[in-house]
């Protein structure tokens, strides 16, 4: 059992971080929310509508956007074209709207200057931004972020935090999985800690990270 009776709700515009040791079920939870994995039991609702049986592509159109841990852009397409794909396949709409949304997403993620670069020529930071821009272009009301801060330098992480906080001004809710806890706690108001498929703590980030059960879950129970 990877997820075991996980319950949580995310408010409009709220940013929730999900932490937990390796194997806690964080990515599986994101898969269940995004629709790339169907839960054996339980329900996923978006704006009060049950989407548990909706496929990932449909959920994306309904407003669940996702940035994956390992960006896999279309390498031979330009940065703009990649984001355009997200805009068209996500919320869609008339071509001019899709176009505008792609431009806005590029701008929000600081990629405008690189719009005509081929995606395969990007470095890690810009690939992560492209992954984010592509998810944002789908026009999500909930943005699922999977380890978007991994492998970044401190300065790059600061830029990422600034980008995400800009996006949130527009009212996007965020569910963010991140191993880099010290980055995550600066980008969310609430932290949920999972261990062995269950939620073991849920609350204000500093309090959750001081919680003895959270520390034990990561470091092992004290034997000394």
């Amino acid at each position, binding site marked *: 059992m990877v997820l075991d009776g996980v319950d949580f709700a995310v408010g409009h515009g709220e940013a929730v971080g999900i932490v937990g*040791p*390796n194997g806690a079920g964080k990515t599986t939870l994101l898969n269940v929310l995004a629709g790339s994995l169907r839960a054996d039991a339980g329900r996923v609702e978006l704006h009060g509508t049950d989407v548990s049986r909706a496929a990932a592509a449909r959920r994306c159109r309904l407003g669940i956007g996702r940035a994956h841990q390992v960006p896999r852009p279309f390498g031979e397409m330009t940065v703009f074209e990649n984001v355009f794909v997200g805009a068209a396949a996500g919320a869609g709409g008339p071509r001019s709207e899709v176009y505008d949304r792609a431009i806005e997403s590029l701008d929000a993620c600081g990629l405008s200057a690189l719009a005509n670069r081929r995606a395969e020529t990007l*470095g*890690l930071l810009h*690939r992560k931004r492209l992954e984010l821009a592509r998810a944002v272009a789908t026009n999500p009301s909930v943005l699922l972020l999977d380890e978007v801060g*991994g*492998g970044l330098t*401190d300065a790059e992480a600061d830029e990422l935090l600034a980008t995400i906080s800009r996006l949130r001004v527009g009212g996007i809710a965020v569910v963010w999985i991140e*191993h*880099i*806890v*010290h*980055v995550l*706690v*600066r980008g969310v108001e609430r932290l949920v800690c999972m261990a062995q498929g269950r939620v073991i703590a849920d609350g204000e*980030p*500093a309090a959750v*990270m001081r919680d003895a059960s959270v*520390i034990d879950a*990561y*470091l*092992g*129970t*004290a*034997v*000394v």
Partner: protein
Amino acid sequence: MTLLLVESIDARYGLLQAVRDVSLEVEEGETLALVGANGAGKSTLLCTIAGSHRPAGGRIVFDGVDVTRVRAHRRVRMGIALVPEGRRLFPALTVEENLLVATAAHREGPWDVEAVLEVFPLLRAHRSARAASLSGGEQQATAIGRALMTNPRLLLVDEVSLGLAPVVVERVYAALGELSQRGTTIVLVEQDVGRALAFASRVVCMLEGRVVLEGPARDVTREQVTDAYFGLARAGAV
């Protein structure tokens, strides 16, 4: 005497830098535990020492010899043995055959199949069983046994207790303790920090590819490790 010297090691996987300018020294006979969150670079560091991952920069010196450009199988012959994450046994071979594979290193020493079975009595009943049929603990014991068969001076063990039942973890650590007493230098990666602090003489905590805490295990507190592990001192607010 310094057995292992790691000097300014950088290691990458494509675009991702997993180890950033890590330096450390390991004395002969010492037990060093590497702890840190997932993705901190512990396993990669171990692999650069073993020679299974080539560093992008820096130097690895073993027993006074620069081995940075020496290939993994040659390092085994020099006395460096790695127990990799996931054990990596030959599933179709028996326990005994898996152990005997390591004799290809041609290193003289006290370790043979019988000696391994003595340290890991749980393997005795499975001597002729295929590795694929073993439990996680038996596989880990076989993997450590295989490394011992090379008569290493430096034993590198990745994720010692991952996926093992508590009682098996006890046994594995008891065996590692015995090896240490016999003079084998051990560098291990352990998720269970309490366990690492209890076993090792020195602990190194990594965060995002860097060493953020280092000290004798008896002097390092759980609180210090917690702060270093999550990097929360850097977050300011927490």
